[in-house]
């Protein structure tokens, strides 16, 4: 008998349909992957099982959990189920833990809520649960607070809370999305082990096919509140599933690059952050974010820069863009320094532009798109005015596939993918030589990302652009760059042609990174 059987589940929130006719099941000891792009309803399905839906939600259909329909249960009975029969792990390890309580207390709470045991015993069992998630109390004391833990450790605490009572079903909603690849691999391994040990069912929700493909016995593909298809990974046949699959590992068409002339030269760059200010005078010791980095970007190439969070890649990007002065070394574009004395060299800066990750935070919401796109014209000594300015904006918008009329609209009227196009238009308007793409496609859904990558490739060929492609996502970097730099702890640990580095990584860290990166099975 199935552990969880969802039958024809419908959900509306304040009258708006969110889920329609969703049916799926999870058997004991089985891992079911639920895949979908944003807005597909995958998280809402999970919350429907937990009955932790937002205000104004109405469900229909049946959600059979261990023989009971949770939709008919009263709140009291539901509280008895949650944490006991079904545990849940959430996406954000930063905010999913109460910052004011020790991790021991938070794990023990699951036990205290459901069983009549003493505090001491609950703490002991919390220790065991933490041990099972590989956070043994002798290494990470129960009396630690969440802020003293790394992201991966926090996510383990979250898992420990969910499995403390060995529930029969575990729901994990994007459990690794906020983590670095290496940590992600460890957490996924941990989840897999727990499923095997306890024989529980795992409903693993993710936007990333690569994450799920390697783990799940069955995959459920969702789109716009409906289940499109479910089955084994290799057996997915629905056109949408295929498209999704293709987009996940999209290789844009672009000619191979063979130029050698350096456009940007970075030599021995050192970047320190001052310590925290303490009182009226005096600061703590500075931290070194970029430590003696040297490399070239060749004209017309796509250079990848990969590394995990905190490795210094964003700091390096800001230094290249001349946003912050460096403590040591030189950054030169075509032989001209980015910093001329203490002032930013405008002549250099107008040849570089950037596209940031966040499609929502990258635009001033009070400006029209035309004004946003035209902003870099400020760098020109004699910026075009009136009709010329309008034409420049129109051209930039057209070049990224938007209509010139879109310039009159405001940013909130655009989707995430369109916004990244606008960001690209903004970068293109002053016809730069180099564009820094700082995680520029990381926040996009796979299908949108694939389109964006095609656009980037097309523009680079047409306009002879040079990209510095910064990303934590190795699979993307692998598909779009000519050369790649691997950064760790402020240093470049490996550099080489992309294909070569991925085929035969030289540095142990590179090897770890590549091993941890989820790959789609070739069979698909």
């Amino acid at each position, binding site marked *: 008998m199935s552990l969880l059987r969802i039958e024809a589940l419908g959900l509306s929130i304040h009258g708006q349909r969110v889920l329609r006719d969703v049916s799926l099941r999870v058997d004991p000891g089985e891992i079911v992957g639920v895949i979908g792009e944003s807005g597909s309803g995958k998280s809402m399905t999970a919350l429907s099982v937990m009955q932790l839906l937002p205000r104004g939600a109405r469900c229909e259909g049946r959600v059979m959990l261990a023989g009971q329909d949770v939709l008919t249960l009263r709140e009291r009975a539901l509280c008895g189920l*949650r944490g*006991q029969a079904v545990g*849940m792990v959430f996406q954000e390890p930063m905010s999913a833990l109460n910052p*004011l309580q020790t991790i021991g207390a938070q794990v023990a709470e699951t036990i205290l*809520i459901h069983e009549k045991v003493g505090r001491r015993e609950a703490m002991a069992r919390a220790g065991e649960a933490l041990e099972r998630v590989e956070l043994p109390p002798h290494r990470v004391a129960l009396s630690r607070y969440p802020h*003293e833990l790394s992201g991966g450790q926090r996510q383990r605490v979250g898992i420990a809370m*969910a499995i403390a009572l060995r529930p029969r079903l575990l729901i994990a909603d994007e459990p690794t999305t906020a983590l670095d690849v290496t940590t992600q691999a460890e957490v996924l391994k941990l989840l897999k082990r727990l499923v095997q040990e306890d024989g529980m069912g795992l409903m693993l929700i993710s936007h990333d096919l690569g994450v799920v493909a390697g783990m799940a016995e069955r995959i459920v593909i969702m789109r716009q509140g409906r289940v499109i298809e479910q089955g084994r990974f290799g057996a997915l046949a629905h056109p949408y599933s295929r498209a999704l699959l293709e987009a996940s590992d999209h290789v844009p068409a672009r000619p191979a690059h063979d130029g050698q002339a350096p456009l940007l030269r970075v030599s021995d760059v050192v970047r320190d952050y001052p310590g925290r200010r303490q*009182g009226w005078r005096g600061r703590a010791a500075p931290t070194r974010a970029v430590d003696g980095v040297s490399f070239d970007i060749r004209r017309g190439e796509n250079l990848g820069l990969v590394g995990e969070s905190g490795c210094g890649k964003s700091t390096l990007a800001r230094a290249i863009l001349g946003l912050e002065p460096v403590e040591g070394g030189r950054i030169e574009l075509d032989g001209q320094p980015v910093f001329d004395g203490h002032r930013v060299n405008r002549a250099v800066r107008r040849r570089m532009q950037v596209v940031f990750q966040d499609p929502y935070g990258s635009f001033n919401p009070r400006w029209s798109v035309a004004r946003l796109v035209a902003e870099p014209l400020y760098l020109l000594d004699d910026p075009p005015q009136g009709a010329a300015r309008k034409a420049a904006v129109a051209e930039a918008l057209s070049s990224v596939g938007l209509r010139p009329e879109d310039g009159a609209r405001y940013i909130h009227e655009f989707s995430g993918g369109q916004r990244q196009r606008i960001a690209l238009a903004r970068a293109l308007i002053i016809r730069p030589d180099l564009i820094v793409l700082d995680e520029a496609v990381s926040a996009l859904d796979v299908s949108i990302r694939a389109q964006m990558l095609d656009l980037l490739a097309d523009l680079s060929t047409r306009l002879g652009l040079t990209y510095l492609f910064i990303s934590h996502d190795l699979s993307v970097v692998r598909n779009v760059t000519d050369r790649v730099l691997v950064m760790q702890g402020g240093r470049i640990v490996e550099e080489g042609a992309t294909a070569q580095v991925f085929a035969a990584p030289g540095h142990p860290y590179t090897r770890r990174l590549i091993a941890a990166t989820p790959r789609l099975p070739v069979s698909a």
Partner: protein
Amino acid sequence: MLRYGARRAMSLFVSLLVASLVIFLALEIVPGDPAAYMLGINAEPDTVAALRAELGLNRAAPLRYLDWIGGMLQGDFGISYTYRTPVAGMIAERLKVSLPLALYALALSTLIAFPAGIWAAQRRGSAVDVGVMGVTQLGVAIPNFWFAMLMVLVFAINLRWFSAGGFAGWDSGFLAAMKSLTLPAVALALPQASILTRVMRSALLDTLGEDYIRTARAKGLTRGQALRRHALRNAMIPVLTIIGLQFSFLLAGAIIIENVFFLPGLGRLVFQAISARDLIVVESVVMLLVFAVIVVNFAVDLAYAWVDPRLRGER
């Protein structure tokens, strides 16, 4: 921790020094001579001069400033020009009214605001919530001196449950003293309680929307348990800030209420002293209140650390 404390104390000291200079300079340019005020309209000029000499008013301003500061560091606030008694004693006497009044009002406001704020937050959008929010809107908008007037009219003059004002004194018994502080405390507490209720409610609603509340609910906690065990303490940070601000306000800002109820408190002392140009009293009381505000803020900072372990590491 010690070094942090020392630095903090240093910056506290600088603030106080600047504050003392501001106060002294401001009062230096106040027109009006305490000696002339005391001697009235028939006094001969040489009489006024004699009194000025005795009060030490004819000395240079920097000297008087140094004397004042130096004295205060040793707990000697000087001698009041008009009352001719040590200022420290006068302040101590007035604090016996102002401090209990502030604490009483704060206690009332907290006792009303906590349950009301929690109640409203728990039943967000319900009639209870709308009702509580409506009452607090009125409470924030009502001028407290007007409310005090109305209370005196109803409870003292018409119903005669309370005396119309004045302070019974602590030697007439705790209950009698508290009774004479009750109407003033209610008048002071009403707007504060309303503000605090609103802060409590909105802070709770904010924290109730946090991810860790959902985590807690996923563990099997009921809505109420999640609120009590997780939301409440997290909501305390803005609430503590407001309570800290309110305490300073209640201690210093009760001037008008002290007047309506003719309570011999600090606020009224300052008011009287300003009209009598008893500058040394004004300076000392204002300085003391500034000191109190700074210390209360410091205490609130410490309370944050007590509530929030994330801050402990830095302290």
